[in-house]
């Protein structure tokens, strides 16, 4: 039965949906985009705004490489349609350093602790850690590990990532 209805639904001509106007404030800059509704926030950032610092890893919300801050909360940008986030503020890795190029303390901590190898997961790790620190729920190393578990590092730099986050949190 469901197969029949699915076949019927597909057989009917579907008008090509038009593009939708989407306004995002990305790293403090208000930007208007004309996007197809199926454009993910990740693709809008990378393909339409040229902000390729945010990475596409699994594209299914399982690796965390695409993590950005949306209205100051960490999310997986691969599992969000940009059109649904119209009016939102987005912070990506490109928006963290000061205008004079001075790195954000968390970026500096990642360098000082060698908290990466290949670096592909790093923008997501840093954005996720920013969210974690702002949330304020992680007080111990175990809690940081648990609340960072949405960010996979296939090089296995976890001990150094933990050390960098602890430094940025001001933990001894």
């Amino acid at each position: 039965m469901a197969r029949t209805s699915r076949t019927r639904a597909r057989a009917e001509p579907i008008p090509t949906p038009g593009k939708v106007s989407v306004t995002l404030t990305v790293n403090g800059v208000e930007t208007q985009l004309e996007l197809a509704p199926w454009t993910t926030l990740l693709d809008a950032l990378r393909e339409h705004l040229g902000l390729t610092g945010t990475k596409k890893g699994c594209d299914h919300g399982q690796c965390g490489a695409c993590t950005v801050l949306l209205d100051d909360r960490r999310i997986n940008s691969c599992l969000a349609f940009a059109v649904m986030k119209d009016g939102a503020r987005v912070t990506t890795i490109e928006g963290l350093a000061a205008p004079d190029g001075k790195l954000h303390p968390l970026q500096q901590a990642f360098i000082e602790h060698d908290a990466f190898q290949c670096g592909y997961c790093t923008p997501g790790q840093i954005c996720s850690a920013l969210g974690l620190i702002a949330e304020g729920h992680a007080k111990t190393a175990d809690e940081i590990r648990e609340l960072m578990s949405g960010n996979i590092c296939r090089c296995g730099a976890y001990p150094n990532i933990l050390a960098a986050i602890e430094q940025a949190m001001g933990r001894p």
Partner: protein
Amino acid sequence: MINFDYVRAGDVAEAVRLSAATPGARFIAGGTNLIDLMKVDVERPVRLIDISRLPLRSVEETPSGGLRIGALVPNSDLAWHPLIERRYPLLASAILAGASAQLRNMASTGGNLLQRTRCYYFYDAATPCNKRAPGSGCSALTGLNRMHAILGASQSCIATHPSDMCVALAALAAVVHVAGPSGERTLRFVDFHRAPGTTPERDTNLEPHEIVTAIELPAQGFAANHSYLKIRDRASYAFALVSVAAALELDGEVIKEARLALGGVAHKPWRDPAAEQALRGRPATEASFAAAADRLLQDAKGHAHNAFKIGLARRAILRALSQAARGTPQPQWQKKIL
């Protein structure tokens, strides 16, 4: 991904109307499961009705001493809500056992109830699956079935419901508020999800075009004696092999009231009134817990790769009930089972 049309609903009534007017439309809120399923061609909506801006984001106390949780409250906000932490810590713990911090920030309360199974074959559009394509067969029955059901399954489907939050909501006897073309109604949590039977394509008893608007918790939160114990293949961020929501109300050493729900073992959060009845009036001892576990698992049936879950579930039930009785719930950041 397929092309689709996008429309934003201004209120619940408009969302229901838009849905009824467009065959093949789907509601979208957090999107964490639906967008994923669209990427793998399992979901093919012709139109998405965005309900994420509807005013369903409050957590309010009810006249009967419980809480009413708006369907769009993000999972993370709910888990860390002061009233949930204090009065329903079992629910907070179960939420924090699931997904990742990023996903919990996106996923809605109502959407958590409606997420689909993570059965490998449901996700693989190239294989037979009665849930995805009714009548095509169940690949998991004779295929890889480590993650699959041991209770309440059928020859049509041995998929499990993936939620942790829902296991706690089942134990807490939550009530689901829905709105649809024929108005508003409520469902008991145990009646919300279905056994697969011969119609595994239906996960829930929602009628077409109905929207979950709120979850209501009764006053009894079992804050003193509870535990959510989740067993999985890695230390974090994985679906349950077995999870247990245990909640007790003690009168000295005697169990006055008991709740026991399992996750990862059935097509719905699994509760058995007989197992809970086996605990009432009994001393909070391992012998009582074992009797309840045996009752809950008496009809359990394993498949080629998941028969281990029956023994695992029994041990997890005993451990969770003893944690609850001691008042030392399993913290989700603690990877050593207490």
